[in-house]
């Protein structure tokens, strides 16, 4: 019988290089699941949010109910939101995505609507004077001018989604949250710390990436400042 190895895994230390090298595949799979869940949710949220914000802008009476419903959705805690969706989606990745879509949607609708409302009336009148129809006005003037506000909402929604995916561990689809959950049950310190740090790294990286995208697609905001 061989003696148990005396490495950082056996001593259950917080920081453990051995853990990184032996569980590389598990970590990679969890990161990929985390990224997929976040990206899919935020993208679906964005696709739904743009028309909702445009409709709420076009018809003033729709803005109140849209903002009211999204505020109520945002108030519901994440664990309760996932649980309320359980009868509809069962224990599936779709449940986590649906919950996260509802949160992203809230943040995005509010920000895009604020961006559309901030377009100066003079700008709209100038475009109309140049013969722009309502569709062309929306697509080439109003939406581009709302991009900075929309991107601010997108960054908040993405960072929040990265953090909220971990709660999906309750149904087994939590990306790095799954590792945190199983690490908690086995008191595996290295696994919990590594997965937590990776979550924060993903959130910061996603935020910086979106900031870069925002600078690329809105060159005029830099020109105005500089």
């Amino acid at each position, binding site marked *: 019988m061989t003696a148990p190895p005396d490495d950082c895994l056996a001593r259950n230390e917080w920081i453990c290089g051995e853990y990184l090298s032996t569980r590389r595949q598990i970590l990679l799979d969890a990161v990929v699941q985390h990224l997929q869940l976040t990206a899919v949710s935020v993208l679906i949220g964005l696709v739904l949010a743009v028309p909702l914000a445009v409709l709420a802008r076009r018809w003033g009476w729709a803005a109140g109910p849209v903002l009211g419903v999204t*505020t*109520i959705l945002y*108030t*519901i*805690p*994440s*664990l*309760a*939101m996932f*649980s*309320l969706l*359980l*009868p509809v989606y069962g224990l599936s990745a779709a449940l986590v995505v649906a919950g996260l879509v509802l949160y992203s949607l809230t943040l995005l609708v509010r920000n895009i609507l604020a961006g559309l409302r901030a377009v100066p009336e003079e700008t709209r009148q100038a475009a109309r004077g140049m013969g722009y129809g309502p569709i062309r006005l929306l697509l080439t003037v109003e939406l581009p001018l709302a991009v900075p506000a929309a991107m601010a909402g997108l960054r*908040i929604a993405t*960072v*929040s989604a*990265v*953090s*909220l995916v*971990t*709660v999906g*561990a*309750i*149904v087994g689809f939590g990306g790095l*949250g799954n590792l*945190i*959950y199983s*690490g*908690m049950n086995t*008191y595996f*310190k290295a696994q*919990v*710390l590594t*997965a*937590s740090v990776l*979550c*924060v790294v993903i*959130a*910061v990286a996603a*935020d910086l990436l979106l900031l870069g995208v925002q600078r690329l697609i809105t060159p005029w905001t830099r020109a105005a400042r500089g």
Partner: protein
Amino acid sequence: MNTLTEAWDWLTDSAHWSGDDGVWHRLAQHLVLTMVCLVISCLIALPVALVLGHLGKGGALAVNISNIGRAVPTFAVLVLLLLTPIGKWGEGPTVVALVLFAVPPLLTNAYVGMREVDRDVVRAARGMGMTGRQMLFHVELPLSLPMVMNGVRIAAVQLVATATIAALAGGGGLGRIITAGFNLASTPQVVAGAVLVAVFALIVEGVFEVAERLAPHWARGSR
């Protein structure tokens, strides 16, 4: 629809409301955790934010701390605390995590509120010979009150949500009804617990909404 009627049956069964795992006990735990941590967080965050805002220093920290708080998963912090020596004190990890996540919105909103006070008003107060302390308590604080209260409201809703997730890491509160439901593979119990949590969160939000409407005109937000 079937699950909904089963969840309703779960909620109307009086056996589920009494005892240590009952709804009343979990509700009391949730309420106490939320209120105690809100008071602790306000005692920590508001003096710091008001002094920093008055002096006009530390703005980058006060504003960015919210973004940092958003990037760190609540669940990860709860589990990390559970595995440290704090985990041995019962609700210790929950209380520490709740306070950690309630401080950023309080700090950011109070600081921004203080800085948004019209500089001309502050200069007029100084011209009338007010001391720094008088300006802080009689001019800046009353004028920034709507933003300060907005921070308290965001923090309170955040606390309710965090206290729910604490159940995943063994903490008390209404979230335990949900996690117990998952462990029993009982969808009606999961849904019933979720409804209780959602209603609780909406009531907390509603209380702040009503308080804002009842407040005197000058203390109301611009919303």
